[in-house]
């Protein structure tokens, strides 16, 4: 069944936002619990959806449970609004709810994302929903779910620290790129989902609410607004983000955003571009407006 077929069927029995109200209520309750215990993984009954597990079903269930008729949705995948997955998810929500969608970070009330946090700082009125493949940082060192839950309960994190210590001993630095473990509110170690290190500091004392959904692993967790989130680091080996010094965005010239490397195999040329396409577009728009103003001159418009 094609997604567009859902529209007529919506009247024929599909609920607003696809999920039935009981399911949405359960998810919302789990979200409330997650917000109340920042960084703690709350189990929830992940439902079947018309997309496969592992394609953002955790984030999608959160989004579907949260949106109301007045919400404005933005969906990004790896910083981009146009990639296939982002488009499909956005269309699914739009078609089953009829709510407005946007590419502009500032206009959105709910943003569902994978692998990136937008460059533009979010506000108290916005919620960022992250799709999570592996909700537990401790999985790196302990395969048993039962044991990791106990470790979280007892705040028994010494083995995680040893892992980082061994990393430094073997490689001279901590080699974890994405999924860098963070300590939330001085209590739980949390997997921030596979965002680059660049985005990790954005979690700390942020104005907005962060919700994390792992559909396959059936876990929801959250970082509330103004919550302390610190990456695990040693006093003599401070946490470092990716280094883009000397590199700028090919399109907008940004020097302070997370850049993707783009390699042109025909010309052999290597360029860098903003990973957050909305951020890049916004800058380009301002730049062209400024240019126009310069050419046309002020007051003649």
């Amino acid at each position, binding site marked *: 069944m094609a997604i567009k077929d859902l529209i007529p069927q919506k009247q024929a029995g599909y609920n607003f936002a696809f999920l039935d109200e009981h399911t949405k209520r359960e998810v919302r309750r789990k979200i409330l619990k997650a917000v109340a215990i920042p960084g703690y993984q709350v189990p929830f009954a992940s439902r079947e959806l018309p997309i496969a597990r592992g394609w953002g079903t955790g984030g999608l269930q959160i989004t579907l449970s949260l949106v109301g008729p007045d919400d404005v949705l933005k969906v990004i995948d790896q910083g981009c609004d146009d990639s296939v997955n982002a488009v499909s998810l956005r269309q699914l929500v739009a078609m089953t709810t009829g709510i407005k969608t946007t590419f502009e970070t500032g206009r959105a009330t709910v943003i569902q994302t994978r692998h990136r946090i937008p460059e533009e700082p979010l506000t108290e009125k916005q919620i960022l929903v992250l799709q999570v493949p592996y909700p537990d940082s401790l999985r790196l060192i302990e395969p048993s779910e039962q044991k990791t839950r*106990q470790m979280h*309960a*007892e*705040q*028994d994190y*010494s*083995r995680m*620290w*040893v892992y980082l*210590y*061994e990393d*430094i*001993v*073997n490689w001279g630095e901590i080699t974890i790129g994405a999924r860098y473990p963070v300590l939330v509110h001085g209590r739980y170690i949390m997997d921030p989902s596979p965002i680059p290190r660049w985005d990790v500091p954005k979690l700390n004392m942020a104005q907005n609410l962060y919700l994390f959904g792992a559909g396959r692993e059936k876990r929801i967790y959250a970082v509330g607004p103004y919550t302390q989130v610190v990456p695990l*680091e*040693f*006093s*003599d*080996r401070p946490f470092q983000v990716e280094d883009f010094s000397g590199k700028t965005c090919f399109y907008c010239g940004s020097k302070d955003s997370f850049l993707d490397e783009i390699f042109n195999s025909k010309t052999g040329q290597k360029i860098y571009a903003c990973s957050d396409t909305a951020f890049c577009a916004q800058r380009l728009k301002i730049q062209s407006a400024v240019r126009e103003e310069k050419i046309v001159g002020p007051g003649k418009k």
Partner: protein
Amino acid sequence: MVPEKNNLLLEVKELVKVYGSQCSYCLKLTGAQAERQLCPECGSVVACNRISLKLHAGEILGVVGESGSGKSTLVRCLYFDEEATGGEAYLACYGEGKINILQENAQRKRYLCNYLLGIVYQNPQLGLNFNFSCGGNIAEKLLAAGVRSVDQVRQSAARLLVKTEVPVERMDELPGNFSGGMQQRVQIAKALAHNPPLLLLDEITTGLDVSVQARVLDLIRQLQHQMGIAMLVISHDLGVIRLLTDRTLVMKNGQVVESGLTDQILEDPQHPYTQLLVNSLL
């Protein structure tokens, strides 16, 4: 080695550990008198039957008895590897010695293990994580106790390895590469890392050959001189007990049948079982 007055460090009162369904007859129908640990009523195994002991700061107390007498279960209950069925244990340096540590929640028990207790097992596989380097194993205790500097961790680990006579240049190797005696010394270094006031030693020389055994025992004696750590030494080997301890408890069928000065236990044993044990000494 001689304890000072009134400096009780650990007091255990009537510690009980029963494996199985447990009935009201378990404790009465088992023990040294009954010469059995299996309750004839319900079939439960009574590993520790109302064990009481006192350990002063800086003292080494021996616990001797044949295998299966409940010695190891006793230390495992004290290190919370096993949950004691009943009884009380008080540690002077924790909650002013007024909190029964056996009843604490898992998180507090974790704190006790990370800050106040150290353990060395007979089998290094139990005490060491073989996926971590030997330095990493020592680091685990330091990190658990809140050290957050890599350099500091490495310096402390190196110092401990020197103390336990493990070549420092092998610090970043996996313990699997080491001989049994060396693994045991790494385990001791790990147990000492956070400077615990109480160290539990469970048959630490069993299974090592004689020369390595002597080295490990010598190490323990030196550490005791230098650091004044109180130790509970579990062994079935009276030689080990004689060498290390001032006082000794003798266990049989999950009960303490005799306690006293180590030389008195060895030269003038009172209980029939202790006499048998001493007479079996090579």
